[in-house]
């Protein structure tokens, strides 16, 4: 787990950090037995990660929040059936991924133009905002099955067998989807970066013209 939302996870060897908190397996067992405080702790611990996965699979921020909510509800309703045969995080990411894919399917039934699904109304000119929009635009151009595999590998940090388990596809398919998804994403990010530079140049040019008009 490499991103900012990382949480201590004993299963990944982060023993020092995990020692300070109750581990996932114990909390999951307690939650499965009906302990609401344990479930609440788990949800609070993983809400950011669930949201991150949904955000990158769904791409649109509002839809991602809806998918996150659906995922957390699904976890609440399904925790009693979690049998501990897989890591809690693997089960959690499967739920999150399914919620995000369900949200995509719901959205596909709504006749909405692609640009309207992205957060393009944000003002340009801010570097961070432009970079975020570039990532969203690039992700939106990557086929869903490739995008999902890349998100689970490069954002959720799952290994190939875990991704195969989450997506229910063979290992070779996972490797292929990740390779092709990364390639597509890099190409799109390059394109979006070039497009962003063009937009920035146009904004500067427009500002210079407006200022000249104003001074005249």
């Amino acid at each position, binding site marked *: 787990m490499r*991103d900012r939302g990382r949480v201590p996870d004993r299963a990944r060897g982060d023993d020092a950090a995990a020692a300070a*908190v109750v581990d996932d*397996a114990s909390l999951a*067992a307690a939650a499965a*037995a009906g302990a609401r405080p*344990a479930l609440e*702790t788990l949800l609070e611990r993983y809400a950011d990660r669930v949201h991150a996965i949904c955000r990158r699979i769904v791409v649109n921020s509002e839809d991602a929040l809806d998918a996150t909510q659906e995922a*957390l509800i699904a976890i*609440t309703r399904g925790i009693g059936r979690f049998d501990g045969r897989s890591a809690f995080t693997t089960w959690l990411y499967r739920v999150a991924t399914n919620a995000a894919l369900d949200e995509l399917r719901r959205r596909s039934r709504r006749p909405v133009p692609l640009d309207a699904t992205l957060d393009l109304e944000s003002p340009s000119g801010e570097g961070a905002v432009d970079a975020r929009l570039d990532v969203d635009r690039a992700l939106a151009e990557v086929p869903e099955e490739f995008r999902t595999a890349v998100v689970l590998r*490069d954002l959720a940090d799952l290994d190939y067998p875990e991704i195969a388990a989450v997506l229910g596809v063979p290992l070779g398919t996972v490797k292929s989807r990740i390779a092709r998804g990364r390639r597509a994403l890099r190409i799109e990010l390059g394109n979006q970066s070039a497009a962003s530079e063009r937009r920035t140049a146009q904004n500067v040019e427009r500002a210079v013209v407006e200022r000249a008009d104003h001074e005249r």
Partner: protein
Amino acid sequence: MADAQRDLELAAALAVPPLDDLTRARLVRTAIAEHPDAGRPDAARPGATRPGGRLGAALGVAAALVIGAVIGTLVVTRPDDPESTTAARAPVSSPAPSSPASSSPAPGSPADAAAPAFEPAAATLLGDLGAVASASALGDAITARLEAAGERPAAPGGAGTADACVARGPAAAGLVVISAIGTATLGTAPVVVLVGPTPRGENLAVALDPASCAVLETVTLQG
């Protein structure tokens, strides 16, 4: 090596900022409201019928009788202990502040069948807190009893491990450790009361169904 570097670059590009606290709390609260217990307006109230209906209630009464028997045994077997009357009224002996990871049941397994027994150790025995009408009243009773007892730890060992709820370990109640144990009647329902810190640092009292060990009510203690 070059591939690994590209992976990190993609990971950095894909990183998503954390949710703001309000949004996260709202999402969690909404999800928790979908909990099977939370869905029923009377679920958290004392005397509410748990899944299992009358059978559950009957098991609860049976468990209360077992607890009574344990209490009686402690009274009989600890006549030399000046605190025995109070201590023996607690349903179980003290649990250990040991690692929850090692003491709680494996996910998906029947906790009281497959899980290792919870190690008894020092904790405050609250005894029977009597009948209380609400969770807040239960919190007040616990606070008063803790102050009266000076949070004096009880002796380790004893028949307390017979209590299934304590044997499940603190994590089963959402606690990091169990610092105090007692019983009470919440409304009309007999409950086991476990007290301890949560992973978030709150000092929480948890009222459990003696039969199923399901959480009936929680109350945050002050101080």
